[in-house]
C-alpha cells in the first residue's frame, strides 16, 4: 500500500508500487547499517524510540487528561490557564509538547487543530499523528472547508456553531478539550477516558456516548 502525500493510493496490485516500496525498505536498511558502522547511531536506541511511540505514548494519555478535567473543576481551570504544567502533573511531557494549549469546546464553539505546513501534533498526549492528519486533503481543507472535513468524518454540527481552526505554525501544540457527554454522572475517570477518542482531541470527532461503551 503506497500512501503519497497528495492522497491515499488504493491500487494495491501495481507492480511499480511494490518495487518502489521494496526499494525504500532496502534503502532504509542500508542507511541504518551505514549510520551504525559510522558510529553515529546505536541500534538499541532506535528500538527504544520505536517502542516508545508504538506502544507507550498514545491518545490514552490525552484521554486521561480530558477525563480528569471533566471530573475535577480545579484541574480544568489549571489546564485551560496553562496546559503544559497541568498535563505534566500526569507525567506527560516532552518532545513536541513543550508548549501546549488546551482548547475548550462549548455548545457555541467547536475547535479543530491542523498543521497546514507539515504535521505538528502534540505527541506527549496523542502519540504520533495519523496519516490523514499529515496528508494534503486535511492540511489543505481544514482551514477553508472545516464543515466539509467534518462531513468526511461523519460529524455534523449545528449550522450556527462557530468552528475555530488552529493552524499549528509554531511550536505551540494544541489539544481539544471536548464536551463531556450527558448521562455520565458519577463515572470514574477511567471509564470517562474510554469515551475520549483521539479524533475528539484533534477536533475531527466527538467523544463516544455512554451507550457506545460497555
Amino acid at each position, binding site marked *: 500500500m503506497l*500512501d*503519497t*502525500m*497528495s492522497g*491515499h493510493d488504493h491500487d494495491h496490485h501495481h507492480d511499480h508500487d511494490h518495487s518502489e516500496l521494496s526499494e*525504500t*525498505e532496502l*534503502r*532504509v*536498511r542500508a*542507511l*541504518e*547499517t*551505514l*549510520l551504525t*558502522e*559510522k*558510529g*553515529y*547511531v*546505536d541500534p538499541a*536506541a532506535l*528500538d*527504544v*524510540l*520505536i517502542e*516508545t*511511540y*508504538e506502544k507507550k505514548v498514545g491518545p490514552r494519555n490525552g484521554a486521561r487528561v480530558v477525563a480528569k478535567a471533566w471530573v475535577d473543576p480545579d484541574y480544568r481551570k489549571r489546564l485551560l490557564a496553562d496546559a503544559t504544567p497541568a498535563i505534566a502533573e500526569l507525567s506527560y511531557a*516532552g*518532545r*513536541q509538547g*513543550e*508548549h501546549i*494549549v488546551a482548547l475548550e469546546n462549548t455548545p457555541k464553539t467547536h475547535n479543530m487543530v491542523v498543521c*497546514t*505546513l*507539515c*504535521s505538528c501534533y502534540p505527541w506527549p498526549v496523542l502519540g504520533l499523528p495519523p*496519516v*490523514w492528519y499529515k496528508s*494534503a*486533503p486535511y492540511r*489543505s*481543507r481544514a*482551514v*477553508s472547508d472545516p*464543515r466539509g*472535513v467534518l462531513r*468526511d*468524518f461523519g460529524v455534523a454540527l449545528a*449550522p450556527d456553531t*462557530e*468552528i*475555530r481552526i*488552529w*493552524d499549528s*505554525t*509554531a*511550536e505551540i501544540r494544541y489539544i481539544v478539550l471536548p464536551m463531556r457527554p450527558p448521562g455520565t454522572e458519577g463515572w470514574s475517570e477511567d471509564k470517562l477516558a474510554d469515551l475520549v477518542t483521539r479524533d475528539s482531541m484533534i477536533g475531527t470527532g466527538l467523544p463516544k456516548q455512554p451507550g457506545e461503551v460497555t
Partner: protein
Amino acid sequence: MDGAQDMGGVKGFGPVEPELDEPVFHAEWERRAFALTLAMGRPGGWNIDMSRFARENRPHDDYLSKSYYQIWLAGLERLMIERDLVTADEIEQGHVLKAPKPVQNVLTSDDVKAMLHRGGPTERDPLAPARFAIGDRVRMKTINPPTHTRLPRYVRGRVGTIELLHGSHVFPDTNSLAQGENPQWLYTVCFAGTELWGAEADPTTKVSVDAWESYLEPA
C-alpha cells in the same frame, strides 16, 4: 519557502480518508526511518527548523508523490550529506566509503527517555517588550521567501486580531539558516473565514495561525 508543503486552502486534493484502526507505522522501514531521524538530530548538529526546510525544499512533484516517511528519509539524507556525515555514494551503496566524521551526543538506549522528556522548548527570554497586545488588529506581511518560513501564503496580506501571546520563541526563518535563534514574541492571530476566503465563505469559520512579531504589521 513557498513550496508544495504550503497547502492551506489549496484545492484539488480530494476528501479526507481516515483509515480505520490505523497502525502507528505501516511498514518496518517506517519505524526505522522515524527512529533514525530522531536519533541523528543531536549528533547531526541540525535544529528542527533546518530539518523542516530539508524536507520541504524540493520540487512539487517530488514532495507530493512521496509518502510522509519517504519525505523524512529524503530530508535526513540531505541534512547528512550537507554536513559531510555521509556521501551520496555511501547512501546508494549502503556501506562506509570514507572515515566517519567525529560527532558528539550519540544517542544510547539509556538516554532516550531523558532526551524525549527534555524535548526542544523554543521559549527564550524576551529581547524587547511585546509590540502587540490582545485585541490589536494586525496585517500579515506579504513575503515570498526562497527559504524557510512559517508564514503560510493563505494569510499573507490578511488582517486578523491578536488573540494570545505566547512569550518569545526561537525564530525559524533565521534558525533554519544557522543565522541565530533571534527570539521574537509569538502571537496567535485569528482571522474571520470571510477575510481569508471571501464574502461567500462560511461565516461561522474562524482560523488562526501562530505568528512571530516580524510577520506582523499594525492594521
